[in-house]
């Protein structure tokens, strides 16, 4: 899928900042920094992966800075970043 750099979200408490960039190699590479990494790091990565795969994205560099966002927030921010990166509107 054609892709450019894009981001969504903020660094506010309860939010997550998601940056998506094109990647040469196959697969999703997720770099996560989280205030709740010890307890929820795996779960957050799982939600990011599932959201991107659901949008048909299987090749991207993802950088996420999480400040304790809930899963619904993570899905919303990842989706918004993906739409901006691909130009493909999934909400229509």
């Amino acid at each position, binding site marked *: 899928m054609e892709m450019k750099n894009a981001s969504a979200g903020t660094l506010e*408490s*309860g939010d997550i900042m998601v940056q998506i960039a094109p990647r040469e190699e196959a697969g999703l590479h997720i770099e996560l920094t989280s*205030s*709740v990494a*010890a*307890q*929820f*790091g*795996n*779960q957050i990565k799982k939600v990011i992966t599932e959201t991107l795969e659901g949008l048909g994205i299987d090749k991207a560099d993802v950088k996420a800075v999480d*400040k*304790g*966002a*809930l*899963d619904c927030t993570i899905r919303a921010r990842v989706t918004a970043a993906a739409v901006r990166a691909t130009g493909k509107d999934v909400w229509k």
Partner: protein
Amino acid sequence: MRTSKVMSLEEAIRKSGLKDGMTISFHHHFRGGDKVVNLVVGKLAEMGFKNLHLAASSLSDVHAPLIDHIKNGVITKISTSGLRGELANEISHGLMAEPVVFRSHGGRGSAIASGELHIDVAFLGASSCDELGNASGCPRSENAKSICGSLGYALPDARYADHVVVITDDLVAYPNVPKSISACDVESVVVVDSVGDSSKISSGAIRDSKNPRDILLAQQAAKVIINSGYFKDGFSIQTGTGGASLAAVKFIRESMIEKGIKASFALGGITAHMVKLHEEGLIGRLIDVQSFDKVAAESIARDQMHQEVSSVEYASADHAGSAVHALDIVILSALEVDVNFNVNVLVGSDGIIRGAIGGHPDTAEDSALSIIVCPLLRGRIPCVVPKVTTLITPGKGVDVVVTEYGIAVNPARPEIAERLKEAGLKVVDIHDLAAKASSIIGTPDALPFGDKVVGIVMDRHGKVLDKIYNIVD
């Protein structure tokens, strides 16, 4: 013959007979603005002391320089009510060979009075002191540089330590009365530029909230109090330092005026909110172990009905006369509360020490009605959990838990649950609150604890209540 006790810090330390391995003590009335601990321990390090036990009433972010003194072997043991900031983080990661001993304020007072916690030399900061050692947390001259109000946590140290050094930033003419610490208990007086930054007293745990969720929680807590059966003329009350518990005072005030109810006393850490109610005639006496802001410190300096008490008189379990035994209602906050009503206020849900026990278990156990106010979630961190990370206040002393998703009442207090239901409040099972939290955030992975004990939590009766293990990154 009157002989001045004023000398340099180094002379005072030499005169005290302090030796390697002994116990030194400090109070935390300047909270985030304290300068005495770093000053004294820095001097002790310079003089070559090793292997000291630092017994403070509490420690905060400002005490990060202790990390180097621990690494260099100057301090090898710590007793305190709380730890925050970088020092807490390092200790949680295993900085010290010996675990930190945590006690409540009442527990510390009892341990000092019974001799279980023996203090060799106490270094006690004071905002005014005369040359013989009569000391106060109140300013007494135009040259005054600081104000901390009550010296309640320093009073057991002054009374029971073998040797007492008062450190002041305003040496005033004899007699410095009314006094908190008596010259009869003091061996030396040291004058320094500053004992503490008073503007930072209301830092740390205390915040005045405009957060709508805190205000909702405060309204609910006030409704619990008003309908609990304990809200009647002559009642007594204590509030913690959480935003919601401070905001609750505002709503209780309105109801007191409306119903013509007056309180006999307010206890504990006294805030500007309580001073206001007292000055309006709604609270008869303020019993102050710690002045939580400048308004409270100024009030204790001028108002006879605003009285200082020691931590023993405040919250000791050993003394039938301690004030907590006469306390009707206490509002407290929590980092975590579990389905058995156990509360943790010391260790974050990341396993890192980040708080203080304070008077939490003392007031919860001895009050007639204890109310914990906390949101269901803080970000993704659950506050109502299946089991607390660290046990600080056993659930048998906790009566009501107020969250924005409903109010849980300890099954041991069915009469309170009935009264709240009759008043139309949303009373829920605490298991349902924990399940609700879990349904929103998912199930957290287990914390990466190691096998080294970094902290021991003592209960207020002097028994080990829980152990805190190191965190492995």
